């Protein structure tokens, strides 16, 4: 892993009326690093990702991607960034191939057909290419969304609960596949999930946020030792999560 910063967020602030979604958040991601981005519901994870995509405008702070200011170079930057969330669909009334082809064009992917077939093979769904997105199961749709997110061979991938609707077997395969592709392509990934096991498997570094602030950062094992005051040999992010996010005397 090189020391090049792919993403650098400095003093990011976002208010929605009186509510502070992000408060002076700063962090960075290095080239080839997978960062697990954790926090309770409403902590500011999705808002941060939406700011990183340039969809929501921060009130203060700077976001530099590949060393360039996102607010001034969004289009060029997004050519090398991609995003996947189980919350959003691909075009419901299009076939898998058509949907991926449209997104391949949106990202100006050269030799789009070849790339689509490669990814469908990789995610073991080549037989679904003529199926409509609406006909697929949740898990199949999530896999197609992951294919979409890898179309442009991104250097920075933002994954917002990408495997929320997959069964454990598919999650396991998906994680192995993402790690394999990530290594091969030297991709950096910001990965959110509420499945702590998934994060333990995938993340090099874990960053916990709450009330729009980064409250802890480290490897899964480091955080387990540091936050739970244990001489642990295995990470236990579930307990760390509860410890960090539950208020004193609550339950």
């Amino acid at each position, binding site marked *: 892993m090189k020391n090049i910063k792919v993403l650098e967020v400095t003093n990011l602030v976002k208010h929605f009326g009186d509510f502070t*979604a992000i408060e002076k958040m700063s962090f960075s991601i290095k080239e080839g690093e997978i960062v697990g981005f954790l926090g309770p519901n409403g902590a500011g994870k999705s808002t941060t990702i939406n700011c990183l995509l340039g969809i929501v*405008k921060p009130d203060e702070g700077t976001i530099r991607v590949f060393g360039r200011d996102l607010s001034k170079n969004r289009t060029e930057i997004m050519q090398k960034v991609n995003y996947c969330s189980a919350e*959003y669909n691909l*075009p*419901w009334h299009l076939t898998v191939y058509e949907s991926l082809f449209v997104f391949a064009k949106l990202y*100006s992917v050269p030799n789009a057909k070849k790339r689509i077939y490669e990814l469908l093979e990789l995610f073991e769904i080549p037989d679904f290419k003529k199926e409509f997105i609406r006909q697929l199961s949740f898990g199949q749709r999530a896999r197609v969304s992951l294919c979409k997110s890898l179309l442009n061979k991104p250097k920075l991938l933002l994954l917002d609960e990408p495997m929320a609707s997959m069964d454990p077997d598919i999650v396991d395969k998906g994680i192995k596949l993402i790690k394999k592709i990530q290594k091969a392509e030297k991709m950096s990934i910001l990965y959110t999930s509420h499945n702590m096991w998934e994060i333990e498997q995938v993340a090099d570094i874990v960053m916990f946020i709450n009330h729009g602030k980064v409250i802890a950062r480290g490897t899964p094992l480091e955080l387990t030792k540091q936050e739970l005051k244990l001489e642990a040999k295995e990470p236990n992010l579930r307990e760390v999560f509860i410890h960090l996010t539950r208020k004193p005397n609550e339950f």
Partner: protein
Amino acid sequence: MNFDRVLAIILRNYFLTIHQLERFTDLLLFPIVGLLLWGFFAQYVGIESALASFLVGGLIFWTIFERVGSGIGIDFMWDIWEHNLMNVLASPITLIEHIGGLVIVAILKVLVSLAAMLILAGFVYGFNLATLGSSLALLWINVVLFAVVLGIFNVAVVLRFGHIVGPLTWVLPFAIQPFSAAFYPVSVLPQVIQKIVWFLPLSHVFEGMRYTFKTGKLDANNLLVALILNLIYFALAVAFFIYMFHLTRKKGSIVKL
């Protein structure tokens, strides 16, 4: 402007159209049925040929306006209805490319509808739009321009307030229709309304169309006024769209669409 990204918007709508019967009927069935309905009605009541031309010509140009004007908003809303807008917005596409793609789609669709209507009008009623001569292109440009203005306005409002205001997309052209003077001259309208109606480019377009049908000459005055009004409204619509887009990004409501 990146052609690939504009093409993506066009392709997305092409794929949608070939799979969606309702979009296909929108493209051909409704314009053709409308033309048949009013064409036969004109024949039944024995309208003289000049008046019949006004009616059929008005209907064809009105259809262009309505299809382009509502089409831009509806095509934009498909991404909201399918919960896909975030994926599109997360891509490198720019505002201009997105709206540009939607405008091209709307124009391509209306060309298909227009071709079908012209062929039918020629065969069934002996109506030839080419009799409008050089006015035809100017009328067409003005109608499409104002429809684009309306489409951009609709998308801006939907962006800001969500699909709850989506029906405006097809209600607005309908609401404008009585004041557009598509099927009758402006002089028919009450005096007070006439003063307001002259601010609509469409009223100039349709007055110009009737003048050309009647005299065979180009109504340069009306077409020029229509063009100037269109350019002003176009600039205002683009400014409104940019303002709404920035407001939506600031408020974060864009991700809730």
